[in-house]
C-alpha cells in the first residue's frame, strides 16, 4: 500500500488503530479479455478498511473504480488476489454487503414500500411493515410509500435505493457514484443525508466518486487511484470533524493536495 509520504499534507493526521480490518483487499488484480487482447484494469491493489469507516475511491474515468467496487462486492471474480470480509474470502454477492446502484437499480414494478421491503422476505408481515416505515422516515419519504418509482424524482429514487439497502441491515455498503446523475443542489442534500445516516447506523461505506470535493467532504480516507491500469496512488486521511467547513484552510489544503496529486492543481 502506498501511503502518503511523511512530508505530505496529512502529516498531522491522528494515528489510526490498524486492526485486522473489516474488509481487506489483497494483491488484487483484474484483467479483461477483449478482442483477444488482455486489458489489465487493476494491478496489485491492497487496501484495508476498518469497521464503520467511510472510504472514498477517487480516480479518473476508466481507471477501474467500478471494477474494484464490483470485485469487493462479489459481482466480479478477480484475476488475481482476493477480497476478504471479516477474514472470509468473498465469492459472491451477499445480503450483508449491499451494492447501491445509481437510482437505476430501483425496481419500477414495486412501490416505494415494496422496494424498501424487497430484502425482508424472511420477516413477518408486521415486522416488515415496521422496518419499512422506519427507513421510509429515515430517508424522508413519508407520504410516498404507495408511489411507484416513475412518480418520483431522481433524488427520491436514490433515497429509495439507500433505504432498501439499509433495511436489510448490512455491515457494508458499496456506492458507485450514487449521486452522479443528480443535479448539484440535490447532490449536496443527499451527501449530508448520507452522512447523517452513516453517523446513525455506523455502516462501513465504500463510495466511488470522481468528484474531489465530494470525496473530501464525506470520507474518513480518500483512496486515490491512478489511470489504467489502476493502482493505489495515495491514501489521504481526512482529519476533519463533521460537519465540515468547506472554506476552512485545512479543507482547502487537503483538497488542493489531492488535486496536485492527480496533476490538476490550479489548472482551471
Amino acid at each position, binding site marked *: 500500500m502506498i501511503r502518503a509520504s511523511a512530508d505530505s499534507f496529512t502529516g498531522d493526521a491522528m494515528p489510526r488503530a490498524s486492526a485486522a480490518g473489516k474488509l481487506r483487499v489483497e494483491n488484487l488484480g483484474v484483467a479483461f479479455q477483449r478482442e483477444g487482447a488482455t486489458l489489465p484494469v487493476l494491478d496489485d491493489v491492497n487496501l484495508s478498511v476498518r469497521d464503520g469507516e467511510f472510504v472514498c475511491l477517487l480516480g479518473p474515468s476508466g481507471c477501474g473504480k467500478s471494477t474494484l467496487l464490483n470485485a469487493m462486492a462479489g459481482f466480479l471474480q478477480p484475476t488475481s488476489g482476493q477480497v476478504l470480509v471479516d477474514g472470509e474470502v468473498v465469492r459472491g454477492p451477499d445480503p450483508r454487503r449491499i451494492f447501491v446502484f445509481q437510482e*437505476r437499480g430501483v425496481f419500477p414494478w414495486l412501490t416505494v414500500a415494496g422496494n424498501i421491503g424487497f430484502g425482508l422476505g424472511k420477516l413477518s408481515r408486521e415486522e416488515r411493515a415496521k422496518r419499512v416505515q422506519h427507513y421510509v422516515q429515515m430517508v424522508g419519504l413519508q407520504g410516498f410509500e404507495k408511489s411507484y418509482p*416513475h412518480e418520483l424524482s431522481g433524488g427520491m429514487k436514490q433515497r429509495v435505493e439507500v433505504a432498501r439497502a439499509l433495511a436489510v441491515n448490512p455491515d457494508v455498503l458499496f456506492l458507485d457514484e450514487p449521486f452522479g446523475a443528480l443535479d448539484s443542489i440535490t447532490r449536496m442534500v443527499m451527501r449530508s443525508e448520507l452522512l447523517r445516516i452513516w453517523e446513525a447506523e455506523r455502516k462501513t461505506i465504500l463510495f466511488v466518486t470522481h468528484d474531489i470535493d465530494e470525496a473530501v467532504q464525506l470520507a474518513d480516507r480518500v483512496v486515490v487511484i491512478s489511470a489504467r491500469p489502476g493502482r493505489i496512488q495515495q491514501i489521504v486521511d481526512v482529519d476533519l470533524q463533521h460537519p465540515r467547513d468547506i472554506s476552512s484552510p485545512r479543507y482547502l489544503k487537503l483538497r488542493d493536495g489531492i488535486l496536485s496529486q492527480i496533476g490538476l492543481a490550479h489548472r482551471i
Partner: protein
Amino acid sequence: MNTLRSLEWLRPVLFLLALLVAWQLAVFLHPHQLMPGPWKTAHGIADLFPHGLIARYVVASVFRVTWGFFLAVLVAIPLGLVIGWCQRFELAVNPILQILRPISPLAWIPIAILWFGVGDMAAIFLIFIGCFLPLLLAVIDAVRAVPAVYINAGRNFGLKPVALMRRVLYPAIVPRLMTGLRITLGIAWLVVVAAEMIAVNSGLGFLIVDARNAGNRYDLVVAGMVIIGVVGLLLDYGVRSLERTSSLRWGFEEKR
C-alpha cells in the same frame, strides 16, 4: 377548436361511408357476378342472427382461441424465462427454434388431424402451435433485455434462481410481455379461422367454407368475414385494456 375535434371524429366515418358507396357502385355496375354488395352483406348478417347460429359459431371460435392461447401462455412464459436465463440452454435450443419458426401453423393441419382427428382438439392444437413459438421468442428476447442492475440487485439480496425469476425477471419483462401477448392473440385469431375451414364443423371459419360450398352464398361469406373482423377488434381491445390496468402499467409510463 371544438369543430376541429368533431371533424377528426367524423373523418374515418366519412371515409368508411365513401368506401361502402364505392363498393355498392362497383357491384351495381357489374350485375352478373357473385360478389355481394354492402347491402346484401348486411342482409346476410341479419339472416344469421335469428337462427342463433352466429352466437354459437362465435362462442366456438373464441373457446378454441382461449384454450390454445392460454395453453401456449402457460408453457411459453416459464420456458422462455428459463431459456432466456441460461445462456447454455439457449445456445442448445436456438437452432431448433429458428427452424420451427418459419413453418406456418397451417402446415401443421394434416398432423393436427392425424393426431386429434376432426374436432376441437385439432383446432386448439393448431392455435397452440401458432402462439407458442412467437410467444416463447418474445419472452426470451424480453429476458435478455432486462437490465443487469435488476438481476444484480436481486442476487445481492440473496435471491436464489427460482426466486430471482419470480420476483425480478418476470416482473421486469411484463411490459414487453404484454406487447407479445397482444401480437400472439392476433395470430391466434388468424389461425382459428384457417383451422376451422378444414379441421372442424363449427365456428366462423367453418361458416365461411360452408356458405360457399352450400350454394355459393357469398353474402354469408362476406358477412362471416365482417364478424371475424369485429370479434378480432374486440379481442385486441380486451388485451389493450389489460395493458392499462395499474399493476401492469409501469413500463408504459416510463417510456413517455
